[in-house]
């Protein structure tokens, strides 16, 4: 790993001058689940969906929907199969939930988005990135795409 987080920060990917106005909110159980799946998947990237309800000022996550990472190089990439995407959209519709966003892990890499993340990002989704290392230490940051770059989204964890 590089010495500081700043060395990973690509200003063509992240706009550090802006902050997303809509907050990402979830409870401690959701946080624990995100941490656990990232640790269990280490040293490979894991991925899934965040489901819940969107409001004017917050993305309220009530459920984590893990899916298989089908990328060929899972130590540095994730890809979600079309059928899994289809299933999560159907599940959300049936249960009157919104697909709020996508989470994935960055093993031995900070919780900041890469060019590869930006390439596939949809502005409507929140992108929660779980940084995880070999000691099981984790950090979660969330991002949204706005004007062709990611901006950071505040996370509020409720008890």
């Amino acid at each position, binding site marked *: 790993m590089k010495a500081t987080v700043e060395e990973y920060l690509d200003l063509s990917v992240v706009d550090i001058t802006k902050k997303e106005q809509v907050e990402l909110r979830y409870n401690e159980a959701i946080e624990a689940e995100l941490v656990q799946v990232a640790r269990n998947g280490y040293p490979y990237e894991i991925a899934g969906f965040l489901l819940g309800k969107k409001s004017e000022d917050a993305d309220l996550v009530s459920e984590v929907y893990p899916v298989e990472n089908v990328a060929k190089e899972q130590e540095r990439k994730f890809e979600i199969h*079309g059928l899994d*995407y289809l299933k999560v*959209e159907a599940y959300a*519709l049936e249960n009157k939930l919104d697909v709020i966003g*996508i989470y994935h892990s*960055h093993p031995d890499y900070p919780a900041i988005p890469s060019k590869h*993340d930006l390439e*596939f990002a*949809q502005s409507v989704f929140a992108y929660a990135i779980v940084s995880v290392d070999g000691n099981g230490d984790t950090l979660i940051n969330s991002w949204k795409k706005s004007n062709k770059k990611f901006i950071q989204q505040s996370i509020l964890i409720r008890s």
Partner: protein
Amino acid sequence: MATIIIPTPLRKFTDNKAKIITSGKSVGESITQLGELHPDLSKHLFKQCGTLQSFLKIYVGDRDIKSLKNEETPVKDEDVISIIPAIAGGKI
């Protein structure tokens, strides 16, 4: 005729409608009609040359149309067409 499921990222172009019924007899006709019904959606579905955007996949039921007859895949009333954006990323 078929029902098209609109994925979350594209619902802002369909007045937030998740399901739209079209009268096309094939996937291509159905998707083209969807673009005509929602012109703002059209540019997100098709390239300027008229072919489908490469980051989108189309399924009929649980099958990718690439394993069927692509856009010429026939559809019946009970068929469900899903538009699926590529979901990928990673640290490098």
